[in-house]
């Protein structure tokens, strides 16, 4: 299925022995245990697992969005030679939104309800590319919105989130995440809250972003069939541990772990 | 056994230290009031030649310019303030919840009119509304209680109405109605008990506002008539002797502050802790 797309060998992000432990309410709780993975340039990596498997925590850790006050973390997340897990907040901010962007599960609530769409799409540029003029920013935003499949981006630019449907809001989120052409896009269940038709369109859009801009994507999902459609490689997580790792076809056609087997079995066969 | 239960109850309070501090303050104020009902060092209206005395063993808070014992007057005055605030809440919450629940449940033109009136009155400061009512019906302790009670009705109408409207559309209420449960039963058995938390927190806030409003009114000389003074009026009378007998102002003032603080700290202690900025 993805035989035609080229995966460069260069690793862009390396996670080594990641361990995340919360001590929020007195009882420590391990969310991720000894996770190691490599994301290559231009690759789409799927992270699959049920809720509580630690997949979203991993995504938030890469994006630097974990609350460090309530967390013990071990291991390292290396990007650009920097350990994102232990670097200073300002170093982290330098990458956030510019080199590493994220889109979320809930497009309905992930946008600021009182700010115009255009301002939110441009925000990463306002923060990271102060050299751009307002007109240049607007132009880039409208281009990103068009690329994200929003019809009439000039109009949407001046609208507010409540005027858009869930699918359009997720496209806005994608436009905002890709406006600065990041190297890594983290997509945390980006289609879960959307209906099936919209879901397929968003998946196609992610594939297109990957193919055209070479953006590496970490795609978090509980839906193995979606992951198979989109991702080059897959990691299956369960209770904070990676139980299986391999190319989509390997994992899908020849699961080695019983848990993966049960996930594969759970896919309705009609889809095949 | 009893201690473990107390402990587990306390453990469920988000901020037990704050809650206990508030409860202790409240307990102290109520003790002062209850003791005052049984015994006071002096008759609160009894004048004596010992005028304008400072703090002493004979007069723990000194005496005012008529030689009356300030501690006794504080005990009596805090009883008035406390009872007026309680009565105010009973009237305000009683009428407000009843009207709000019924109009919210049925809706329609009556609801619309009630809302217009409530909107108009709600924005009206309690003290002003009470002033109007007192000016119409005359100034007495009982009238102040009614006036404040009526002044608090709109806020409870609002709370009860919005809660009832919210619950009216919930499935379990719809089910009850489909099963033919009488409207009154739906309102008072199925809806109101489920919103009692919201209403209780409003009663607690309301009590504090009632204490402050009563104090303000009585400072203006409205309400209890001399020589039976409530706390605000004592402060008003003592203002000119503040420098001679500071306790004449500070005594009743502190009791007002503590009465309000006790409940508000308890309420604070019950509130779940908020998050923080990342």
């Amino acid at each position: 299925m993805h035989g035609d797309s080229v995966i460069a060998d260069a690793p862009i992000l390396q996670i080594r022995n990641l361990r995340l432990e919360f001590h929020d309410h007195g009882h420590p709780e391990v969310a991720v245990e000894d996770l190691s993975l490599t994301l290559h340039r231009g690759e789409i990596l799927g992270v699959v697992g049920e809720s509580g498997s630690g997949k979203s925590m991993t995504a938030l850790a890469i994006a630097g969005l974990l609350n460090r006050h309530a967390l013990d973390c071990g291991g390292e997340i290396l990007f650009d030679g920097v350990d994102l897990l232990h670097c200073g907040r300002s170093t982290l901010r330098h990458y956030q939104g510019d080199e590493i962007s994220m889109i979320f599960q809930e497009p309905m609530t992930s946008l600021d309800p009182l700010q115009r769409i255009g301002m939110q799409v441009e925000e990463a540029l306002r923060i990271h590319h102060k050299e751009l003029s307002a007109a240049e920013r607007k132009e880039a935003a409208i281009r990103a919105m068009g690329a994200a499949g929003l019809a009439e981006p000039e109009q949407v630019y001046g609208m507010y989130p409540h005027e858009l449907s869930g699918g359009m809001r997720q496209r806005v989120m994608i436009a905002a995440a890709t406006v600065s052409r990041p190297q890594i896009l983290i997509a945390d269940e980006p289609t879960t809250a959307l209906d099936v038709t919209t879901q397929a369109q968003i998946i196609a859009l992610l594939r297109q972003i990957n193919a055209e801009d070479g953006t590496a994507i970490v795609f978090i999902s509980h839906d193995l069939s979606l992951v198979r459609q989109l991702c080059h490689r897959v990691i299956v997580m369960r209770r904070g541990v990676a139980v299986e790792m391999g190319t989509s076809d390997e994992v899908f056609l020849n699961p080695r772990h019983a848990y993966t087997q049960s996930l594969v079995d759970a896919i309705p066969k009609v889809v095949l | 056994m009893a201690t473990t239960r107390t402990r587990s109850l306390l453990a469920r309070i988000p901020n037990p230290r704050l809650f206990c501090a508030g409860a202790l303050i409240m307990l102290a104020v109520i003790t002062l009031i209850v003791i005052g009902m049984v015994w006071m060092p002096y008759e609160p209206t009894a004048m004596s030649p010992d005028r304008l005395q400072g703090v002493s063993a004979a007069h723990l808070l000194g005496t005012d310019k008529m030689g009356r014992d300030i501690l006794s007057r504080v005990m009596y005055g805090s009883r008035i303030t406390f009872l007026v605030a309680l009565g105010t809440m009973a009237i305000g919450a009683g009428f407000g919840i009843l009207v709000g629940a019924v109009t919210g449940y049925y809706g329609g033109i009556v609801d619309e009119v009630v809302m217009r009136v409530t909107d108009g009155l709600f924005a009206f400061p309690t003290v002003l509304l009470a002033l109007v009512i007192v000016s119409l019906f005359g100034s007495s302790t009982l009238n102040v209680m009614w006036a404040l009670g009526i002044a608090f009705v709109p806020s409870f109408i609002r709370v009860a109405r919005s809660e009832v409207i919210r619950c009216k559309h919930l499935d379990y209420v719809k089910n009850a109605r489909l099963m033919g449960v009488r409207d009154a039963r739906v309102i008072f058995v199925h809806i109101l008990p489920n919103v009692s938390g919201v209403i209780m927190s409003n009663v607690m806030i309301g009590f504090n506002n009632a204490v402050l409003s009563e104090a303000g009114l009585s400072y203006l000389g409205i309400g209890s008539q001399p020589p039976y003074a409530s706390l605000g009026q004592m402060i008003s009378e003592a203002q000119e002797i503040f420098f001679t007998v500071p306790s004449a102002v500070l005594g009743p003032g502190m009791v007002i502050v503590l009465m309000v603080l006790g409940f508000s700290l308890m309420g604070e202690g019950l509130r779940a802790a908020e998050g923080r900025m990342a």
Partner: protein
Amino acid sequence: MRYVLKKTATTLATLLVVSLLLFVAFQLISGDPATHILGTGATPERLAALRAELGLDQPLPARYLMWLTAFARGDAGVSYVYHQSVSSLLSAKVPVTFALAAMSFVLMCAIGLPMGIACAKHAGSPIDRAVMVANQIIMAIPPFFAGILISWAFGMGLHLFTPGGYVSYETSVPRFLGYLVFPAVAIALPRAAQLAKLLRGSLLEEAGKNYARTAYSRGNNTNGVLYGHLLKNAFLPALTFLGMSLGTMLAGSLVVERVFNIPGISSILLASIGNRDYPVVLATVMLIAVFIIFVNLLVDILYKVLDPRIDEE
């Protein structure tokens, strides 16, 4: 625009209902104005003549309309006690009370808003906790008690102002305002504490929402998230509070004017309540009601300006 028109219409409706209620209440309770004016010893002929002159022989709805139109023109009748027009009695005092309330409002915002933001930003820190406990205590102090303490501390102790040294705004506006600062602080403090608490809670609630996480993911620092996104959202609940505060500050002025001997409407209103001088009481209350109802309209319009989700329907 339709929203504004609709809100204006509701405001006028509220105004009519409130004025009608006040008018009817005062009519029912106050008895015969002619007797009040002429005294009980007046002859029936003179009473009847005055009733006709005042339009009291008209039915209630007509009297209401007459009173309302006269009030709108600034004619609020004649005081029973002072035998002069209510407007002339109040005209010099109303600006004083409103100035005090306005200054209290400004002080409340100047103290409460920054404090709320700072506490939210440092939520959970020892300073935040100390401020929140102090706030709880300040909220429990009635303004008149605070006023007495302030006038003692700053007047007698620090000699920063002279209690009773009121200067009319006709003499010197700066000295007039200078005298109002301390009374205004007494009125503003408890409300400022409430505002800070409200804004802090509201900000922290917004900080927990998904869009705040989105803002962080774009590389915003805490200030960027706070001022760029959270503040506007968190301000909406505070707006209702601010609107209601203007009314509270007027009520607070009535009480605190007495502490500082400020010649606003407090003394005449209280004297009129005591004397059952109903025209003065009715006019004062109506004036405050009109003000409060229009403030509410302003708040509604501001909501519309700040929140695009409020629909036009």
